């Protein structure tokens, strides 16, 4: 099943950590935002395979904006 990860804070994409095709564990960072002069990771709340990354470095992100789409690992495809 596909699921989307949203950013809980506004900021600018500082660094992309994960690549499309990566399997990420729960809590692993997808990107790092620069928000209020700090480096804030945006983690995936569930384990999954990164399918689409909706943002690029230096993009400005709003609170609640979709960051990535995952295919969950715990269910058969």
């Amino acid at each position: 099943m596909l699921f989307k990860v949203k950013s809980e804070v506004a900021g600018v994409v500082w660094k992309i950590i994960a690549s499309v095709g990566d399997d990420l564990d729960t809590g692993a960072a997808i990107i790092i935002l620069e928000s209020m002069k700090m480096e804030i990771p945006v983690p995936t709340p569930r384990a999954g395979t990164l399918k689409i990354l909706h943002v690029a470095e230096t993009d400005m992100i709003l609170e609640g904006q979709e960051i990535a789409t995952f295919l969950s690992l715990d269910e058969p495809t």
Partner: protein
Amino acid sequence: MSWHDEIAEIKRRRALAKQQGGADSVERHHQKGRLTIRERIDSLLDKDSFDEIGQSSGVPEFNDKGQLSDLQPANFVLGIGAVNTRKVIVGGEDFTLKGGSPNPAGLRKSVYAEQLALQYKIPLIRLHEGGGGSVGGTGQDKSHRPIGEPVFAVSRFLPLAQTLGVVPVATAALGPVAGLPASRLVASHFSVMTENAAVLIAGPQVVKRALGYDLTKEELGGPQVHLKSGVIDNLAVDEHDAMQQIRRFLSYLPDNAWQRPKKIDCHDPVDRCDDALAHIVPKNRRQPFQMREIIEHVVDQTSEGSSFFEMRRKFGPSLITGLARLNGHSVGVIGNDCLFYAGAMTAAAAQKLRRFVDFCNSFHLPVLSFVDEPGFMIGPDSEASGTIRLGTEAISAVLQSRVPWASVHVLKAFGVAAQAHFGPQGYVLSWPSAASGALPIEGGVAVAFAREIAAAKDPAARQAELENMLAASQSPFPRAEGFSVHDIIDPRETRPKLAAWLDLSLAAQTDPPVPFTFTMRP
């Protein structure tokens, strides 16, 4: 002669009332994965402790001979029971009867719940599921024209407000909760909702008709909405978890505002000095850390895990609020979470802080404050949401506190908002990582030295140079030398230091506790 017939009649009526909405209605309810109100009460209370009030109340039906043929029970179940052996008032709508929308006796019993709590001065727990009034009349006999309440009646909303000042009130939303029950739900110190619950002022059909939005109950008032709106404090994975959270919440509190919270035995060494505290805060100011880890290392650990019970995590998430124990004493805990806007005080965080501090004052909970405050949140959204007024209100609430207050200055304490983390006559411990001033260095230098930086040969180098120079002025050591904090400590000493302070502070409270009052605020 005996009263056997009448006694049998009482028994029959009680049995009729226990049928709730009837077997079919109960079955439909179970199929939705929900418990009935009687099952909920049993799951909340200590075994067999429920003493029901008004169990024969309801709407009677009579046969041709004028004999009672059926009794539709009041669709609000009310009574007194025990939670961890402490007496509480408990009540809730019976959704299996008219979807919880009050029938006459149901309305009377629901209104009486608050009055009981006020009369006996014990905690109140309401388990909500149901709708409010109907256009056909609420709590009235439908065959009559509605005549309203007598002019001299006391509004049922007054006791709802009064309870909050004198007894702990915990509520749960365990299905759709709309209208009056939704209002009762939020008139509480702690509220919890299950995944499949929804809290609504008005449902989808009413919203569609009035505003044109086509939204489901869940989209309008599901957990995704209300954990962030602040209407609900915590999410429960299921109904059992909701009851466990309510039981846990109550465990930190006294029965009423004329008592102090009770100390429990503490098996966690008071002189425990966890090494982790020496390296949780990164030296690089751009890197975030987990304030919750610091809190966990300081407060009591029990055989069931940490004593820290967080409330309202999703609302105003730059501020952490929760209950915990230190050396067995109940305490309120606040802390900044730098993963959300560096821990800045947003409009929501300010409301969260104000409400939490008033709650701690109402039930005499000392406050432990873990400080990493960069200031009020800045930017257009923050200005538009009135953060400066709400933030100043929060500061007023903190400084009007009458509970013992200790602050651990962990990292940042900048600007006006820093004042919201230090209570009156508070105990202040500074960590070596602490930094304070009017503005954080990074933003402050760029503004204050703009011309000098622009004129430099290498502006970036000059800015870095100025930042390093001024960072030294924000060091905690000069403040410790000037006795502007009680002490600068090894972070590992935090637990024993706070525990010793708390014992002294509580022993010094010689006046009997009374309900908390305060005056107008910004």
